[in-house]
């Protein structure tokens, strides 16, 4: 018993829509741009480690990173407790002053509203992923001890 042609078409459209919505949600969630209005609240999110890149548009070392941060965002998407963020210090200068940013690029880890680490290693996805995963694990362990 074949499905009626009309019903088959509608089913395909529905499936396509589901896929598109999923893709859109995924790409929107990869790297979150933080601003003066959102930074403080975001890094306080419960049980969430934030790994934030601080840059300015005129710095070629920042431009030279290319798609590094987006690539890291894609890789980290499956980890619910880790978020990848970025701040444009040209636009949100008070944010960068508050967390003591003096050179670009700077990569910092925040947990429950506090800075917990600053990254200084090689600038590739694997190293960055390992670093933030380790920091998230440490944060989780520290929390267990506190409770």
């Amino acid at each position, binding site marked *: 018993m074949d499905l009626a042609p009309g019903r088959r078409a509608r089913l395909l459209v529905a499936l396509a829509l589901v896929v598109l919505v999923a893709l859109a949600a995924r790409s929107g969630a990869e790297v979150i741009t933080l601003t003066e209005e959102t930074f403080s609240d975001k890094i306080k999110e419960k049980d969430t480690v934030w790994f934030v890149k601080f840059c*300015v548009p005129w710095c*070629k070392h920042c431009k030279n990173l290319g798609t590094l941060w987006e690539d890291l965002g894609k890789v980290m998407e499956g980890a619910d407790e880790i978020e990848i963020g970025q701040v444009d210090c040209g636009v949100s200068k008070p944010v960068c002053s508050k967390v003591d940013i003096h*050179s670009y690029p700077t990569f910092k880890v925040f947990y429950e509203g506090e800075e917990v680490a600053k990254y200084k290693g090689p*600038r590739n996805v694997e190293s960055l992923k390992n670093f933030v995963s380790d920091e998230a694990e440490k944060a989780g362990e520290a929390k267990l001890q506190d409770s």
Partner: protein
Amino acid sequence: MPPQEPAPAANGAAPAPAPAAAAAAAGGKRRKRGRWAAAAGVGALLVALLAVAVSSRSFPAASSSSRGGDCGCPGTRKYTGMVEDCCCDYETVDAINEEVLHPILQELVTLPFFRYFKVKLWCDCPFWPDDGMCRLRDCSVCECPENEFPEPFKKPYSGLSPDSMICQEGKPQATVDRTLDAKVFKGWIETDNPWTYDDETDNAEMTYVNLQLNPERYTGYTGDSARRIWDSVYKENCPKYPSEEMCQEKKALYKLISGLHSSISVHIAYDYLLDESANLWGHNLPLLYDRVLKYPERVQNLYFTYLFVLRAVTKAADYLEQAEYNTGNPEEDLKTQSLVKQLLYNPKLRSACPLPFDEAKLWQGENGPELKQEIQKQFRNISAIMDCVGCEKCRLWGKLQVLGLGTALKILFSVDGENHLNQSLQLQRNEVIALVNLLNRLSESVNFVHEKGPSIEDVIKQQSSSTVKPVFPI
């Protein structure tokens, strides 16, 4: 001799117009405009003024021995007598710099030919992972838009090809050609400098820079990243066995690097960001003292490097005189040609300091050729380290000055000095641009040290003998 303690800060600045107080200082005046381009009447007056200025000062004879206490007031000059391993004394260097070289060079580097520099800013560091970063916006290099770069600089070279030059070597008629051919300049070549690391003939990823828009000054590049650069540079120059006494050739290389380092530190102090929030730039004289003046050896090496580079420029006089300074700006190109001739053939310079450095004394040992190769390799490694400089503008000026020094080494040590025609000397346009800009940097540093050094030293003496701390003039 231990290597100079690395300075945490990196490349300094070209001078901004001096503050009024500094401009009022005796002999400290700088005139950047109108010196050479003037109406006939004003020109005549200018010539008269120059004649008065020059005649009011006599240049010491080059053959004079150390003055010691014979002439002038004892204690007035901290640096006196012959510059070590050189053939001119400090008094002469200061005089010809102030009266002859500094004014010419200041004008020369503003002209189109010497204003644009081609550089690879984004090569990967060959020694450690990239930790480059910016602190001030000022550490970014303002790149030259394509249409601003002089058109003739972009065209493929039309001079001798490397193959053609190779074929001439060893051929019987080459000797004949050499004696008959009176022309020294044969068009700009594009053969790599054996003393430097960068592949200058590969035009991929070259950045064009207007040096006038990217002054060498304080950039905030400090800390571990900057310190590692200087640590690596000096380490490259250390002998393998610390107890071994350094031969004079390696000693010369050490002094060149130390002198370059001193010059960079002087430029940082000259144009320093005194107040970041107010964007206030000025002289940082305590820094000048702490980085350079406090260590006599660093000042001495600055003079040594200056004379070494000056010797290279004067040795290449025939080539530089005939060189083609074409940027598509006829009036300014003529001025460039004229200023270069003044630089090369100034009678006061030639009589006061005819041989700034005697390179013939080097490489005389039985292992001369091997030693030269070893030192050349060391310098190539030093030039490669420039790709590890994290601050972009520091990298620009680091690369330019190292290329300038590499060009000086090429002129003095990679060319047959016995051949009066300098037949085998061939330079790239970029090498000449780097060489002259380096000479200007060194000239500015010598000028500033000579101008400010004594008063700063006096203030330090007062400070140590008094509880009151005077404020340094800005």
